[in-house]
């Protein structure tokens, strides 16, 4: 009995030491994008639910159906730098792609070259968001048992309003 009590106490102690607190501001996974009825398309559906989306770098191949030059052309042919303010920094647009290759839940973030949060003028961000949403060539992926949804993002390098590079 004494041994059992000691084992129970030890197990409790170990559990207390290693189990992280449930109270936190962290999302389930860093970078999770929850559905927001104010800004997201309610018709965009994930194939395997919110908790099973993977990251783009875990895919077996690059997520765009064509190679990067075609993606760059999509933006460079249509982005009009003449209409923009002369701002510089990085803009990231992150989103989910479902197993059918449809994209949704777009979120935008900007920074200056000190890596501080920056809200770019809409003359830049509206164009980039609109062009990102108009991409129709994201690949859909499936495993043997289910359709795969994944997080993807594009980062745009902007210099004086000009679109200089697209990553990744």
């Amino acid at each position, binding site marked *: 009995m004494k041994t059992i009590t000691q084992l129970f106490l030890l197990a409790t102690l170990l559990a207390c030491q290693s*189990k992280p607190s449930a109270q936190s501001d962290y999302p389930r996974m*860093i970078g999770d994008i929850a559905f927001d009825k104010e800004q997201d398309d309610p018709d965009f559906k994930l194939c395997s639910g919110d908790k099973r989306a993977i990251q783009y770098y875990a895919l077996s191949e690059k997520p765009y159906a064509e190679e*990067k030059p075609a993606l760059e052309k999509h933006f460079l042919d249509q982005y009009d730098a003449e209409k923009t303010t002369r701002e510089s920094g990085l803009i990231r647009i992150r989103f989910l792609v479902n197993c059918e290759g449809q994209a949704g839940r777009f979120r935008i973030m900007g920074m200056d070259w000190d890596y501080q*949060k920056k809200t770019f003028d809409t003359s830049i961000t509206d164009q980039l968001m609109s062009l990102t949403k108009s991409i129709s060539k994201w690949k859909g992926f499936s495993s043997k048992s289910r359709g795969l949804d994944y997080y993807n993002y594009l980062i745009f390098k902007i210099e004086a309003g000009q679109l200089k590079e697209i990553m990744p």
Partner: protein
Amino acid sequence: MIKYTYLSIVLLLGMTRLSAQDNCYAFYLAGDTCRYQACDFLEKAPSYFQLTREYHLIKDQALAICPEYSDIYRAKSTAYLKTGDFIQWKKLIDKAVELNPIEHLGYRAWCRFQFFRDYQGTIDDLEALNDLIDYNPGPCQNGFYNLNIAMALCYKMLGQKQKAIQIIEAHLADETQYTGVYDNLHLGVLYFEIGDLAAALKAFEAQEASGNLAENQYHKARVLEKLGQKEAQKEALEQALSLYQNDICMFDPYGHQVDKIFLSDIEAALNEL
């Protein structure tokens, strides 16, 4: 084959660093009680995927034990890096650099280059690191480049091609350092871009001897075109196509490298013959 070798290296490096599991006993022997206790805590804690809430909560608990344990900030920063959250990534990696600049400046520099194409920021970090050390800064995180080569590529992207060439040539002349898998390729492209075709060809041939890849043959074909060697140009492009179709080309799961080419580049060049 290059792709799978690369993936293996990435996975191995990821396992050794991102788990933030140092040799705890080394801290103990050094009398570093703070890091020993935090390290010991992490060693006994369950493992979680680096993006999960649990992973970060455990790391936070370890930081509560030892706030000076810089590796933990770096480990936490990776989740933000890989999800493109440059702002939160930078806050965390800056903390790691502040606590241990020699250990983390090279890593921060590499991430600025690989993920954000922040060429000046990469150069600034590597210059700061070189001011602190009197030895070679060593390889980048994925092992494919020496950090000096990364610096050279940043100078190239900022238009300082002669400076980039000088750095790469100095690196290749240093017999104590390994030649990276793409070093001669980048050197050849740089020479081509400044119009030194003989030096470009020499570099591409060195790359061919140490590890041929589609990019090397493609850029070599550009030199051969300038030299008016049509047959050799065609042969190089056909090799480039074959290598590309067999996945023997530059590959990075997180993005695209400098001087990378694509199937459309090769096909366009072949169509122009």
